[in-house]
């Protein structure tokens, strides 16, 4: 490589081609542009005419200069110019290369490998001997120096590991003698770094290579207030925002991205990302990734902690008001509500919801035994609790019990019994409860008894101190039956009152683990890895990797013996992430005596692409100029050609658009008052009409109601925070561009947060619900990713018909029906009221094709811009259109206020009038 100032050339001999440029100048100057041959009868008149201007015979100087520029750029480009080329290693003697090789260095591993290769090739040229040490995998024996070539060959085998650097004993693990050191740091602090550094400095010069890019990592996801929260950490505030993707399997089993959230540290080193997702989607997530970052730290695996199971709780007794603490399901509710999705209802209803777990509290005489049995055989977990009913029932026909029960049951420690209440025996080794501490205060006063049988012991997973089974379990098909021999309330035992109860439920995979697993949660079981992360953040099948004791896993510190990944035991799964729990990423600091490369060094930038692009652009311009000179660039074709060429040139150099935010002034303007907003349609004329329409509606509102909106605004979907808008009018044009996924996320958040969008296909709804018109089809395509509830044509008693004016139809320039959120199927008409009590809330969307904006639109002097209908009837229709607008805005602002009058008779009655 030849170096000229800040620029180096990888193929400098090609620059000799520049010498030929002056020669080319002379050649090109002499050759006039190629002539066009034209057939022209008037040539007889031309004969004998001489050209007066002789200069045109030669190529003009600026065209020559352009061509030479193109050629020079091509020559220099092919000579491989590199800005800020990296220089070779100084020094002599043996060279030790130390690579941190942790997950933190995986993000730019290629650069590191290149740096090592460069050092190795320099060492090979200088005949230096080299040794390579990976701190993530410390050498077992003292390493020795070998020739650079063999180390180069071994280099592809050095890969980053999904854990941070292991402890390194400088005294025994460094090679003999004096040597220079190149240390490829991952940029994170480690406790023994200074010790190793001083040991290395004692042997020779130390050069440190460290990337300037901050290290980013994701921690374990947890659930907070119903949303998934993923903590993100950085060693320093990253300069540019990134995005985090939630990845999981779709219903077809194909892995895909389920959600995406921008990751912006906002100048800090930690940030919490919130994924507000429906439970079905949330349970599908298997991992989070910082997109575009290949590192084990950028991947956060999810486990049971973020999976919420659907649990159905049924009990045989009817709930009685006031006896909550005696209710057989109260403690189950208390234990499960925070961590599981509970379903209530009859057994039939519950089975259609396909729960993961069904808990039957004291139910004998199961009504739908065969159906329930099918469900269990397909993988359901049926947990039953005993109770007075079960004790007194004839259970011979009940096949959904893990063990046969003796009729009657027994009570201990009561007034009529012999012994004291019994405590629990420690859990056996093979029980799913193994490792849970048994509190002394758990006592059992009554229980149902199992019929002695040879396999009783096998089925027992918890027993009392006297050996009688407390919990029994049996497999049935792919599912399991579990019976607690005590009741689910505190009548028979104190078990539901104890902390053991939720722990046992969790062990049975009924409830999700609250957040970080404790030692007690995991201890006593062997956890088998299912999937393991490599250093680059790729998930691999663990294969036959050895299991890990739960106590080890609970420490949650990844290392060679405990690789990050998914570990399972029984039905439970625990994820171990590369970033330890509560870990903080501290950037590595180096003393001033050490030369740190990456920190000050500018990035090596190859200029070849830019120069070749310049050459290509110049040649394109040359085409235009040559065409213009030879007279071929005339007429409409010329304009087309010029447009094409300039478009080609421009697309190459368009800078990426900066990410903008809603400006503060705009946000204040939109939020300080009610503002009607219109969605840009991509058609300037439609946009102008939308704004004029909203101006007209605002004027009507100002005049007739207490709503006094400010001037309408055009939504800037990309930058605006939609929460500041009350109402969005969305005219659909046939060729409207769809919003991006991020913008859809914004719109969905807006709709969930009580906003309203009025979709207007402006096609007079000619084909029913927009089936065939181009705008109707576009609307379907545009609205598909939106969270829109089921829709129905507006019922006659919808609250929109009476929020301000009493209306029965909702015309704009056309008069078609409109669609709103469908009323609930069981809406009933209240006594004495003319309308049903419909949706509790505001319909998030109103869809129609009546072209309201044109009916509302007024010009600057307040006159209508478009005719509506004919004569007085048309004016009447415009008036109704305005009234519909007023009703709509009132509906947005007051919700179902007018529907509440349904309750007026009842209120009056209670007040005694």
């Amino acid at each position, binding site marked *: 490589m030849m170096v000229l100032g800040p620029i180096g050339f990888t193929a400098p001999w090609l620059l000799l081609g520049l010498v030929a440029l002056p020669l080319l100048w002379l050649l090109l100057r002499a050759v006039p542009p190629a002539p066009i*041959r034209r057939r022209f009868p008037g040539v007889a008149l031309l004969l004998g005419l001489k050209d007066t201007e002789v200069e045109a015979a030669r190529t003009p100087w600026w065209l020559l200069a352009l061509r030479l520029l193109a050629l020079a750029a091509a020559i220099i480009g092919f000579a491989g110019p590199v800005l800020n080329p990296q220089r070779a290693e100084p020094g002599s003697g043996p060279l030790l290369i130390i690579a941190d090789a942790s997950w933190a260095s995986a993000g730019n591993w290629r650069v590191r490998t290149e740096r090592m290769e460069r050092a190795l090739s320099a060492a090979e040229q200088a005949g230096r001997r080299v040794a390579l040490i990976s701190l993530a995998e410390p050498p077992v024996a003292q390493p020795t120096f070998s020739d650079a070539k063999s180390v180069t060959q071994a280099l592809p085998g050095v890969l980053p590991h999904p854990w941070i650097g292991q402890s390194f004993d400088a005294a025994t693990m460094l090679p003999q003698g004096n040597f220079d050191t190149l240390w490829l740091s991952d940029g994170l602090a480690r406790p023994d770094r200074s010790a190793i550094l001083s040991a290395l400095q004692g042997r020779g010069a130390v050069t440190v290579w460290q990337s300037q890019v901050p290290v980013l990592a994701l921690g374990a996801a947890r659930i907070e207030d119903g949303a998934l929260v993923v903590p993100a950490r950085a060693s320093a505030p990253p300069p540019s925002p990134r995005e985090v993707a939630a990845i999981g399997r779709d219903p077809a089993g194909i892995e895909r991205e389920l959600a995406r959230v921008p990751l912006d540290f906002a100048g800090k080193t930690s940030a919490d990302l919130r994924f507000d997702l429906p439970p079905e989607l949330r349970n599908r997530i298997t991992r989070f990734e910082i997109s575009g970052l290949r590192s084990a730290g950028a991947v956060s695996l999810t486990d049971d902690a973020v999976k919420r199971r659907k649990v159905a709780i049924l009990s045989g007794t009817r709930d009685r008001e006031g006896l909550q603490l005696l209710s057989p399901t109260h403690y189950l509710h208390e234990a499960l509500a925070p961590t599981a999705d509970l379903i209530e209802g009859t057994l039939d209803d519950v089975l259609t919801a396909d729960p993961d777990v069904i808990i039957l509290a004291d139910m004998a005489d199961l009504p739908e035994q065969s159906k329930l049995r099918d469900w269990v055989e397909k993988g359901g977990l049926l947990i039953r609790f005993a109770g007075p009913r079960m004790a007194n029932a004839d259970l011979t026909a009940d096949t959904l019990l893990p063990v046969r029960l003796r009729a009657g049951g027994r009570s201990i420690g009561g007034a009529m019994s012999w012994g004291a209440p019994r405590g629990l025996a420690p859990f056996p080794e093979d029980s799913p409860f193994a490792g849970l501490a048994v509190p002394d205060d758990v006592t059992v006063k009554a229980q149902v008894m199992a019929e002695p049988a040879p396999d009783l012991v096998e089925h027992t997973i918890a027993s009392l101190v006297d050996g009688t089974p407390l919990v029994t379990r049996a497999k049935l098909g792919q599912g399991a039956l579990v019976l607690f021999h005590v009741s689910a309330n505190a009548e028979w035992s104190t078990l539901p009152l104890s902390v053991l109860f939720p722990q046992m439920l969790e062990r049975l995979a009924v409830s999700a683990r609250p957040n970080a697993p404790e030692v007690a949660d995991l201890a006593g079981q062997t956890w088998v890895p299912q999937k393991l992360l490599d250093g680059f953040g790729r998930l691999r099948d663990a294969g036959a990797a050895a299991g890990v004791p739960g106590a080890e896993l609970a420490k949650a510190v990844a290392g060679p013996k405990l690789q990050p990944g998914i570990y399972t035991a029984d039905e439970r799964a625990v994820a171990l992430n590369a970033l330890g729990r509560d870990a903080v990423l501290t950037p590595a600091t180096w003393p001033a005596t050490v030369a740190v490369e990456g920190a000050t060094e500018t990035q090596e930038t190859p200029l070849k692409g830019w120069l070749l692009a310049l050459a290509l652009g110049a040649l394109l311009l040359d085409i235009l100029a040559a065409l213009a000179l030879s007279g071929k660039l005339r007429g409409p074709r010329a304009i087309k050609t010029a447009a094409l060429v300039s478009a080609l040139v421009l697309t190459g150099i368009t800078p990426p658009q900066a990410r903008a935010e809603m400006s503060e002034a705009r946000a204040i303007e939109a939020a300080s008052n009610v503002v009607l907003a219109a969605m840009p349609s991509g058609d300037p004329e439609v946009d102008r009409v939308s704004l004029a329409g909203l101006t007209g509606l605002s004027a009507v509102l100002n005049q007739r109601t207490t709503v006094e909106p400010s001037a309408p605004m055009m939504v800037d979907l990309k930058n605006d925070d939609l929460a500041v808008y009350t109402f969005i009018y969305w005219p659909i044009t046939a060729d409207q561009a769809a919003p991006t996924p991020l913008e859809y996320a914004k719109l969905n958040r807006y709709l969930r947060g009580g906003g309203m969008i009025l979709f207007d296909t402006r096609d007079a709804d000619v084909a029913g619900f927009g089936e065939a018109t181009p705008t109707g089809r576009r609307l379907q395509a545009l609205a598909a990713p939106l969270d829109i509830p089921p829709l129905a044509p507006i019922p006659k008693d919808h609250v929109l018909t009476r929020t301000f004016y009493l209306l029965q139809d909702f015309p704009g320039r056309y008069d078609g029906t409109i669609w709103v959120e469908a009323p609930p199927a069981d809406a009933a008409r209240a006594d004495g009221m003319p309308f049903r009590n419909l949706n509790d809330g505001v319909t998030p969307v109103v869809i129609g094709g009546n072209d309201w904006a044109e009916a509302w639109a007024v010009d600057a002097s307040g006159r209508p811009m478009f005719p509506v209908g004919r004569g007085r009837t048309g004016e009447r229709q415009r008036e109704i259109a305005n009234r519909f607008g007023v009703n709509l805005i009132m509906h947005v602002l007051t919700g179902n206020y007018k529907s509440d009058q349904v309750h007026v008779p009842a209120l009056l009655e209670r007040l005694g009038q």
Partner: protein
Amino acid sequence: MNASPDTSVQALALRREAETAASALPPLLVAAEHLAATVQMGAHGRRRAGTGEEFWQYRPAHSGDEARFVDWRRSGRSDAQYVREREWQLAQSVHLWVDDAASMNFTGAETGRAARAPKSERARVLALALSVLMIRGGERVGLTGVAAPPRPGRAQLMALAALLSAPSGQQDYGTPQVAGVSAQSRAVFLSDFLGDLAPIESALGQLADRGVTGVMLQVLDPDEEAFPYDGRTIFQSMSGALVHETRKASDLRGRYQERLAQRRDALTRLAQSAGWQFSTHHTGDPAQSALLWLYGALGRGQG
């Protein structure tokens, strides 16, 4: 059928050629008829007594008039005898010369929205439309030369259409043929007149000697007028015989147009001296105006 394969192949080829030839006839004639329909015919009697169809006057019979010429109905109303005289209507002979040289095949815009037909096509349509009008007016129309001597009647139109549809000649610029032009007849020259002027001059001289007057219409493409070229260009005549190379075509524009104007002046002077009329028509303009001018100019020249 005992026809050998050879004869049947020949018959096929003959028929194909015949169809090809025939297919060219109707469009030209149809276009010409269409164009001619735009011109309203006017009477062009000689305004004196003679042989003809139209009544001119009654005059008293005098000696020498045969009895069968006496108009008895008029004579019955008075004592004298009257003879019915008819207007003298004389059929004119018109000779057309349509330049069929290669230069007439030029068009400045072959394709695109503003495509124009070549000059030759315009000239032929004009000539045939003029023939239609003339024949409708009872004149005799033919071509210069010996191929089609002037004849009246619609059958002559078919013959003219066939002759005018013939492919163009090979030489660059055409020269008018004056053989077969009868004395005191009329002649119409349709050409671009871009070639040598000498043959035209001599042809006009010969015709003037025979007392033939006529009309010259220069048919030009708009591009030949505007010369919208620039850049380095090699101009070739249509057959490629004449070549002129220029480095900067736009530089020639002014001088070309000057020469064209000179050429037009020369033609006008030539026409005036021979008692002819001269005008220029561009193929970019509608053909009706040119036809009207032709028809009017022929009418002006007579009687």
